[in-house]
């Protein structure tokens, strides 16, 4: 029998006992719906977590520190490595070398220092850090009030919420709610801060070739060009710069750094051009006597989170310490894989129950249509024709059940998402998409429903095909 005829006959037969077949189809729908809803929530949650992780910069960032820096982020085993005094310095040459590694998008120096900022003639002491333009995509700036830096060299500053509150004298007392960010940013955006800092100027030592009066351009000198045996003199000069506040952030963009995190962020190029004296520079004077900039840390952005390990290993080989959240995310992903599996199992259970419904419906149909099967066989239907007809009926029920089920599951997921967002809103949180139905899930769920249905139809179809026509015709 041709496929079209088969489908037509199957549909006709299903119409003959509409109620029973619809109920069976609804059973499949519910099974598929629960499968789709569960998996779409699982996938949605995983994507949410991934999104958050990527945006947080934890997922794709490796922080490189010199092993000379005894304050370590990581808990690397120190025993089989050169002693801190023998390990290389983090300087501009290293930064360029790291930036050239495969899979590295960018490597930027981590410049941070504690200094005082004056606002309304009142000084405030805090950690200041330079951040690159690419940080704009960080989730911390999602709720940014005001705007991001207009350029990488602009004399602009973005304040962390708690510092903004401090400037305005609105630091919340313990136990009370934080003032809304919009309230904090309004009086601050556009205002000026005066930052006082210590500029480091190398003074050419007697006998060196450096032209007197040349401007201090440490990065341009390319690192270790000068002999380390020669001594360099620094002079530290107190300087001031006016900064315009352009934005206030809600979240902390540098949560990974713990105590080292900055509450005032400046454009990276601007900070570099200031040549602020940093603790690392002091420590490394013996090595970087040339006056080349040394960094306390370099942040490395990796193109693909999957390549984190490779990049980390390459940097470690160069003799530096690295730190990333890779291990944390790995276990997170494992958690989601298990979660998905469990959700899928629960969904499949519902589908398994539905498949028993199909078996039941089709076996009932055989009993009911015994005579009809006998007639069809008597007028020339082969075993395969009868078997295929029952298969087609199971398949049609499965297909309908699958399609309705996906629609139902999609709706359930959506409703849960909307309800969650209403809840989040009440809690004063940002709405989130916790549910996602990818195309493969739509196709997969329908295909799965049909396969389960066909499998359920296996026994009834065989039984129908094997029916003895003589007996079937005798049956009234």
């Amino acid at each position, binding site marked *: 029998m041709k496929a079209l005829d088969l489908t037509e006959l199957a549909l006709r037969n299903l119409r003959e006992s509409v109620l029973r077949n619809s109920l069976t189809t609804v059973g499949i729908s519910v099974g598929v719906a629960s499968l789709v809803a569960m998996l779409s929530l699982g996938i949605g949650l995983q994507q949410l977590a991934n999104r958050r992780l990527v945006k947080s910069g934890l997922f794709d960032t490796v922080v490189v520190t010199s092993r000379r820096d005894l304050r370590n982020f990581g808990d690397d085993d120190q025993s089989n490595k050169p002693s801190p005094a023998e390990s290389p310095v983090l300087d501009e040459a290293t930064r360029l070398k790291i930036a050239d590694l495969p899979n590295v998008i960018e490597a930027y120096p981590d410049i941070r220092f504690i200094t005082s900022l004056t606002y309304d003639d009142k000084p405030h002491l805090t950690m200041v850090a330079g951040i690159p333009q690419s940080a704009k995509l960080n989730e911390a700036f999602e709720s940014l009030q005001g705007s991001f830096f207009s350029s990488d060299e602009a004399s602009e500053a973005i304040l962390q919420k708690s510092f903004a509150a401090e400037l305005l004298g609105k630091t919340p007392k313990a136990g009370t709610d934080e003032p809304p960010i919009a309230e904090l940013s309004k009086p601050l955006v556009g205002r000026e801060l005066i930052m006082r800092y210590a500029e480091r100027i190398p003074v050419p030592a007697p006998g060196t070739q450096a032209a007197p009066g040349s401007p201090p351009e440490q990065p341009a000198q390319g690192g270790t060009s000068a002999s380390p045996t020669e001594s360099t003199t620094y002079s530290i000069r107190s300087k001031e710069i006016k900064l315009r506040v352009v934005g206030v952030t809600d979240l902390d963009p540098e949560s990974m750094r713990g105590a080292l995190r900055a509450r005032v962020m400046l454009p990276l190029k601007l900070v570099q051009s200031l040549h602020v004296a940093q603790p690392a520079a002091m420590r490394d004077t013996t090595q970087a006597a040339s006056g080349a900039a040394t960094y306390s840390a370099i942040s490395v952005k990796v193109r693909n989170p999957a390549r984190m390990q490779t990049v980390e290993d390459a940097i470690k080989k160069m003799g530096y310490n690295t730190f990333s959240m890779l291990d944390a995310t790995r276990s997170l992903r494992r958690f989601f894989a298990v979660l998905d599996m469990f959700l899928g199992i629960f969904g499949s259970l519902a589908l398994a129950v539905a498949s028993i419904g199909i078996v039941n419906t089709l076996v009932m149909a055989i009993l009911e249509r015994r005579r*009809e099967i006998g*007639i*069809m*066989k*008597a007028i020339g239907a082969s*075993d395969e024709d009868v078997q295929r007809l029952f298969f087609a009926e199971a398949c049609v029920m499965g297909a309908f059940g699958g399609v309705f089920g996906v629609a139902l599951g999609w709706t359930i997921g959506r409703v849960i998402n909307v309800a969650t967002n209403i809840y989040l809103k009440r809690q004063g949180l940002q709405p989130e998409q916790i549910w996602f139905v990818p195309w493969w899930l739509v196709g997969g769920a329908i295909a799965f429903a049909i396969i389960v249905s066909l499998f359920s139809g296996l026994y009834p179809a065989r039984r129908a095909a094997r029916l003895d026509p003589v007996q079937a*015709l005798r049956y009234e």
Partner: protein
Amino acid sequence: MSPVPTQTPPEATMAPAICAQDLRRHYRMGESLIRAVDGVSLQVAAGEFVALLGTSGSGKSSLLNLLAGLDRPTSGSVQVNGRDLAGLTRQELSKYRLHAVGMVFQSFNLIPSMSVLENVELPLRFAEVDRDKRDALAREALQRVGLVGRIRHRPSELSGGEQQRTALARALINRPKLLLADEPTGNLDSRTGTEIMSLIRECNQDLGSTVVMVTHERPLAERYAVRLIFLADGKLVDDRANQPTAVASVEGPA
């Protein structure tokens, strides 16, 4: 109406359409062994109109089922148009039923959920005939049995005679060489029964189909069949030629 084919003597020199040899069909019913067909040997020539007579339980329906390929013999052989049915696979048997045999039953055996037209074209579906061709063939077959209107109706909306006409149209749609009828008039009043019998004889005479009809009504058999075969307890007890009496007046109420 040419009476020529009906005057073919039983022992004709034509190639036999049916050739059964020591045909047996036994089956178990609980403790007892039922010998439904118990050593029947017979030959039916192509184009013959044969009536199988006997009381209920004489094995005539069982013999018909064996000829129809619906059942397999326990032993013995049955050849229809040169094909040994006992040696066919299930698949081949279904093809045989589809293309070589047409069957009409006492209880019509139409599929209640299908319209008349759909019932008639159902065998063509199994034969994978194209949709357009199917429709034309079904209408043609319905026309032959005199059913033109009401072809979109369901069988339950038709009279018994109309239902049997539908069944006959379905049996003839694949132009079978062998038409098997199991008490075709058993559920009909005598007038419609005569109409149906006339149609069956038309098939026999015009299309040249061999007809084997099971009946327990001897007068009916004598009116239409050229040969009467009597069965009792699964055995052939008598086989005689007959001069059909209804030849002259086809449409007559007899």
